[in-house]
Structures are given as structure tokens and as C-alpha cells.
């Protein structure tokens, strides 16, 4: 009896398996138009996002362009050792983390302050015009911004030096003084992104139930108290979510900004050279594909782990802020 049951199960399992495959095919046929629509996009992601992942093996090879990825010799972790032995990594990792922390903190702060202030304003025209002006810089590329920067920091004729000359000070050689650049870059980042970043916070504030403010007013709360005890606490989840997203990318230097503005000025590298600019130079100037790939791989890996970690933390602290 038991034997019969056992032998009867096997074909059943087989049908189930065949059924799964048949169901898969059936699903593809049923929605063939929709799958076909998505196909070009899926292929694009395969070529431009997944194939480069295969290229990570270059990091473990002594890559020679002539031999290609398939023909190059494997060298284990030599590229990683070489990078860490050079000592450059301390400077570029420190700069990347330091600059990005400054950017996250000051940009978030500026965006929240702008959003809170603008919501409190009354004049419709004043609001409209200032908002348009504050958002505008976001639409410019960093190469254009770099031109603007020159007008301010140039040693001969730059605005800052024109201004301090009025008080009889010697001109500051910005282009050879790395110490000023974290500040300059933060000011630029705020200029470029704070107005735009404030939009999300303004949307959050406008979503707050006006009854809360009204009953606070009836209870005699001042404008400042309403901001302190209603607006800011209700902005907190949005601030946490956006900060988490930003912290996930803290190992990614802003290449577009830093390369466009600082470019190839070695005198400013001590404070401005980040992982991405260093990697770019070691690839283009030294042609060291393998070491560059090793740096890039570590950066991707650490970034990946960071996003997962930070999200796990977010889930615990504020479940509504987690991304996934």
C-alpha cells in the first residue's frame, strides 16, 4: 500500500515540475506584448549594468589591454596590496568622507531652514520670485559653475580679493591654498542644491494638517513655538529618510563637482582629492586599469554594505523611513 503511494507521488511531482515550466511559458505567452515591451530595457540593463560587474575580475588580474579580460593573468590580491601600500588611500578616503559629511549636514540644514522660512512667508510674489531664484542653480552643470567660481576666487580681479583689497589686505592665493576649499565646496554645494532640496521639505510641511497649527494658535503658541514643536518634529521622518539615502553614498565622491572645479590642480589635492578623482587619474593618466578597478570594486562593495546596514538601522529607529 505504502509502496503504491510512493510510486504514485513521483509522477505527480513530475507533473508539478512540468506544470511549473508550462506555467512559466504560459505566462510569457499570455503577457507576450508586455514582456516584449520590457525586453529592450532588460537587455540594456544587462549590457550596461551587469556586464561591467563581470569586469570586476580585472581587479584581480594584471590587466593588459592587448590580452583582454580573458587573456590577462590573475594575480590575486596584489592590486589591493599595492594600493594600500602606497599610502594615498588615507588621504583620499578621509577627504571623501569628510567632504561628503559636510555636504550632507550643511545641505540638509540649509534646505530645512529654507523650507521652514519660506512656508512662514506671506507675500505671494516674493515667495514665487525667491523660490525661482533659489532653485535655478540646480539646473546648471558643474563646468558652468566652475567658471563662476573663477570670478570669485581668482587671485587677480576675483571678487573676494577685490573686496579684501579695499581693507588693504594682501590677495589670497586660493588656487594654491587647499585649506579654503572644503569651505568653498560646501558654499557651492549649498548654492547649487539647497533651494532645490528644500522643495521636498516644503511638500512635507504643506502636508501637515492645518488644524494642528490652528489649535496651537488658540492655545497662544508663538510662531517660534509652532516651528519648534510642530513643524520640525513632523519633518523629522523625511530628514531621516533623505539622510539615510545620502549616507548610503558617502563613499562616492562627487566627481562631477570636484573634477570640474578643482580639475588637475595638484596643490589642492590635500583637501579635495576624493576616491573618484583619484581613481579617474590612475586610470586615464597612469593607465593602471587593474589598480583602478580594485579601488572601484572596494568602493562599490563598501557602498553596498553601507546601504544595507544603514537601512537596517533605519528600520529599527523609524520603521516608516526605511527604503526596503
Amino acid at each position, binding site marked *: 500500500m505504502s509502496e503504491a503511494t510512493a510510486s504514485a507521488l513521483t509522477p505527480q511531482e513530475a507533473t508539478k515540475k512540468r506544470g511549473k515550466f508550462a506555467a512559466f511559458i504560459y*505566462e510569457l505567452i499570455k*503577457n507576450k506584448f508586455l*514582456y516584449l515591451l*520590457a525586453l*529592450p530595457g532588460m537587455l*540594456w*540593463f544587462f549590457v*550596461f*549594468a551587469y556586464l*561591467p*560587474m563581470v*569586469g*570586476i575580475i*580585472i581587479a584581480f588580474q594584471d590587466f593588459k*589591454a592587448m590580452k*583582454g*579580460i580573458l587573456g590577462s593573468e590573475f594575480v590575486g590580491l596584489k592590486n589591493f596590496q599595492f594600493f594600500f601600500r602606497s599610502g594615498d588611500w588615507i588621504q583620499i578616503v578621509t577627504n571623501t568622507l569628510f567632504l561628503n559629511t559636510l555636504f550632507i549636514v550643511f545641505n540638509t540644514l540649509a534646505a530645512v*531652514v*529654507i523650507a521652514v*522660512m*519660506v512656508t512662514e*512667508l506671506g507675500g505671494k510674489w*516674493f515667495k514665487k520670485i*525667491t523660490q525661482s*531664484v*533659489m532653485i*535655478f*542653480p540646480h*539646473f546648471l*552643470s558643474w*563646468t*558652468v559653475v566652475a*567658471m*563662476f567660481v573663477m*570670478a*570669485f576666487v*581668482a587671485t587677480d*580681479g*576675483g*571678487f573676494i580679493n577685490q573686496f579684501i583689497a579695499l581693507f588693504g589686505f594682501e590677495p589670497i592665493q586660493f588656487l594654491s591654498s587647499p585649506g579654503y576649499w572644503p569651505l568653498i565646496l560646501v558654499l557651492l554645494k549649498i*548654492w547649487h542644491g539647497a533651494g532645490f532640496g528644500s*522643495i*521636498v521639505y516644503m*511638500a512635507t510641511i504643506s502636508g501637515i494638517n492645518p488644524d494642528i497649527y490652528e489649535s496651537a*494658535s488658540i492655545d497662544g503658541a508663538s*510662531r517660534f513655538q509652532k516651528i519648534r514643536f510642530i513643524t520640525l518634529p513632523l519633518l523629522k521622518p*523625511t530628514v531621516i529618510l533623505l539622510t539615510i539615502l545620502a549616507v548610503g553614498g558617502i563613499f562616492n565622491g562627487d566627481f*562631477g563637482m570636484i*573634477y*570640474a572645479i578643482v*580639475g588637475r590642480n595638484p596643490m589642492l589635492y590635500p583637501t579635495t582629492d576624493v576616491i*573618484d578623482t583619484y*581613481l*579617474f587619474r590612475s*586610470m586615464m593618466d597612469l593607465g593602471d586599469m587593474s589598480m*583602478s578597478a580594485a579601488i*572601484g570594486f572596494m568602493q*562599490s562593495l563598501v557602498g*553596498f554594505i553601507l546601504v*544595507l546596514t544603514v537601512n537596517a538601522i533605519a528600520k529599527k529607529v523609524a520603521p516608516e523611513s526605511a527604503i526596503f
Partner: protein
Amino acid sequence: MSIKESFSDRILKMFFYIAIALFSVYCLIPFWSVIASSLTTEASLVKNGYMFWPSEFSLDAYKLIFQDNTIYKSYGVTTFVTVVGTALSMIFTSAMAYTLSVKSVKYRNHMAFYIYFTMLFHGGLVATYLLISKYLDMKDSIWVLIIPSMLSAWNMFLLRNFFASIDDSIAESAKIDGANDAYILFRIILPISLPAIATIGLFYALSYWNKWFDAMLYINNKDLFPLQYLIQRIMNNLDFINQISADVTLPNFIPPAMTVRLATTVVTIGPIIFLYPFLQKYFVKGLMVGAVKG
């Protein structure tokens, strides 16, 4: 507004007005000064430094850059990349986003994860560079400015979320009336999604317009330099300025290096200023969609 504002409330509001006004000035000053400085003579700029008001009004720099065909070529490249790129991006992005939004597509979550993963982890610059330049052999082709950046996972998910927010019953009832998927997409879903499509289209258009890194990596042919890369080049070397000054045969002529740089910058941002009302409107809208749904 039955409750009268107290004195301290009005002071605080006053302070907010002043702070916002100052920040707006801070945002505006660089534009103002670059435009003013580009409208003066080179000699005056060298003598007086950058300025907020043109000391000796002159259009020389603009005349000079429009005499040469470099700027026209770059405008052509950037316009082509922006228009064709945005069109292709939108076709493939909305096709994909629609499939991922239809609930009867059984594997849509698997497909979504396949795309989502590329936002978390990437192969890095070296592998991408080798793939595009060596294996796909796209160097010095205008398509290298379009195809490798054609799809953005972020934009795709924004659009998918928008499509998913459309009431299912619309598509369901069309299906009962015998409409097929293509009809539903082109006749029902796309027309009611036009604002979202305009928003995502502008996201793409701006990123194509402002692209320069890809040109720096893959383009050596001067005829294919997009505007933003041209700006980057002329900031860092004098080739362009010497080239456009070569035809000038005046005695004692000094190439106006500084004003030409500034004038080229102004010419580059022109279209963005012109289209700004649209950009602002749709970008703000798009951000809201992202903030609420993303």
C-alpha cells in the same frame, strides 16, 4: 486669521524675509557678475577685475565666438543628444515602466529587483570604460553620449509608481470591452500620464544637456564636443581662444581669453534660462511624486 500676531512673531517673520532675500541674492550674484563681466572689454576686465556692472560695454567676445563655427557645432551636438536621447530614453523607460506596473504580469517583481539591484551595486568606472571603448567600440561616436546613459533606474521606478497609481478599473473595463494591451497603453495610460511623462522627460533632457564627463572619456573628435565639455576645455586651455582669434588681423590684438570664456558660459546657459519656467514647474511636480511615492 482671527488671532493678531504678537510683536515677537512679526520680528521673526521679518527676519525670515530678510534671510530668504539674502539667500536669493547669493544664488543670483554669480549669474549677474558673469553676464556683466562678459559684456565688457578684455582690457577693462584685466584692469578692473570681475565686475557687477560692465565698465566699458562691449560685445566683442560674443562677436568673436559667433564668428567661429565651433560654438555652432557644439550647440548642434548638444541639441541632437538632448532631443534624440530624451526621445529614446522616454520610449524605453515608459515601455519598461508600464510592464512593471501591470499587476497581471507575474514576474514583475523579479524584473523590478533585477533593475533595483543595479542601483545598489555597480561594476565601476574601469569596467564600464573598457566595455564601451574597447568591447563595444563606441569611442568618437555621437551615440556614446546617448546609449550608455539611456535608461535610469530611478526615473524608471518613478514612472512605474505613477502608472501603478492609475486606477486599475480603467484598464479592466477597457479589457472587458475587448481592448488589447497595446490599445490600453497607447490610448488610455499614456494620454492620462502626460504630466508625469513630461516630468521624467525633462529629468532626462537636463541630464543630457549637462553631460560632459562621457565626452571627456570617449570623445576626441573636436566636431563632437558637446557644449558643457567645450566649456570645460576652454577653461583649462587656450586652444579654442587662439583658434577663434586666428582670423583677426588687427595689429596688437590680444586674444580676449577671459571675456570669451565668460561669454561662452553665458551662451551655454541661455536655453536653460529660456526654458526655466517649464523646468521649474515639472521638476517640482516630479520631486513631489518621488517624495510621496518613492
